[in-house]
């Protein structure tokens, strides 16, 4: 017998199930228990940069909106810094860069308010275009799905983005780029529909 390596194995994922709201958004399940639910305020009051709104649907393989999704976002601030010791630099007081939203039980719509992130460093001296990192869980999703949302008004940065350029099928790259909607109360609105399956299936990442 060769030597043992003695690594532990990662715990296996299991679906978040239909009642994920109880744990992670109890107000939506229909009760009030915590002083404060986490993930409601992504950018905080002091964040610099352009305030934006992001909205969309998660659509299944039959073309129907999925109405029991929980979606988390992780993003840099306008300077391209993440709120983390290895995040590249300081962030504004109150900027967490993380948010958690659910899809509406009737319409399947989700949405959140934040600031537009700046470009962040990529590997080997490259620059990543501004993007939001998204993580999607729901009943029927056995392991959380990772994707990214890029901005339609960053065409040059997107064209140079090392992650977008990893996608061999150029046609599929468009699934990661939000659509610009009409401004609302002077705030730019981006529309990002996520397709789990079927025509125009969104690109998901094994990160």
């Amino acid at each position, binding site marked *: 017998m060769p030597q043992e390596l003695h*690594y532990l194995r990662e*715990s296996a994922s*299991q679906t978040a199930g239909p009642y994920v709201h109880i744990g992670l958004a109890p107000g939506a*399940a229909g009760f009030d228990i915590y002083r404060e639910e986490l993930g409601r305020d992504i950018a905080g009051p002091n964040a610099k940069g352009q305030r934006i709104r992001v909205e969309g649907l998660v659509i299944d*393989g039959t073309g129907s909106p999925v109405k029991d999704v929980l979606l988390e976002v992780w993003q840099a601030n306008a300077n391209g810094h993440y709120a983390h010791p290895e995040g590249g630099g300081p962030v504004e007081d109150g900027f967490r860069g*993380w948010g958690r939203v659910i899809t509406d039980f009737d319409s399947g719509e989700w949405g959140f308010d934040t600031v537009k992130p700046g470009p962040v460093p990529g*590997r080997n001296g*490259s620059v990543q275009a501004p993007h939001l990192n998204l993580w999607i869980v729901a009943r029927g999703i056995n392991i959380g799905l990772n994707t990214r949302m890029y901005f339609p008004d960053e065409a040059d940065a997107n064209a140079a983005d090392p992650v977008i350029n*990893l996608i061999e099928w150029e046609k599929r790259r468009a699934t990661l780029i939000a659509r610009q909607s009409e401004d609302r109360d002077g705030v730019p609105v981006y529309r990002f529909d996520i397709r789990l399956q079927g025509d125009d299936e969104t690109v998901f990442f*094994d990160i």
Partner: protein
Amino acid sequence: MKPAEYHQRDRSLHPPALTPKYKTSVARSPRWPMISLENTISEITGPRFGHADIDPIDNDLIRNYAKTGDPVGERIIVHGRVLDENARPVPNTLVEIWQANSGGRYRHKKDTYLAPIDPNFGGCGRTLSDENGQYAFRTIKPGAYPWRNRVNNWRPAHIHVSVFGSGFLQRLITQLYFEGDPLIAHCPIVHAIPDRDAVQQLTAKLDLNATIPLDSIAYKFDIVLRGRRSTLFENRLEGN
């Protein structure tokens, strides 16, 4: 040594997206292969939480929603450590749980199972692991319940567990099962996991030493997140 990249996720122990015996997965599973990304700053960073975000009572499901007395059911303690694949503790990380009550009913407006709501039980809790990665909850053992997949499918007793780690690529949601539950062997959601040892790893073991005599039974459940290399011969992530 400065930590380098995270270990590649061992997908062979995780359920694949498409598991037809768990019917809901069929229309919700991507068909194209995922694009594999080398770690960047976007994946190795992740949200951090502190004691200002939560309250001490949040990890006590026997008391955190009690209105007129304690909830009905078997009093249990669930405790363990959050570790990484290198067996290092993951400190100060947020652990959130949710579950049905002792009758198998969730406090959720979409749950219509005929078992009653317990007026003293909310069914969710959250805590931060300590500097050694230890965490603990006090709760009621959840009941089994039927679910619509085939007409006679029952979920084994389980607690949903959500963990963050220090990088967004460690984010994980899983479920805790209880040693000795005969329904584990019949559950299509459990069977989505292709690896028997990985199922065992999600099964909490009775821990008599941690039991509080004349009060609560204890179960031990360690949670393992992806580990990270500490490599000498590596280009830095930002490569400059």
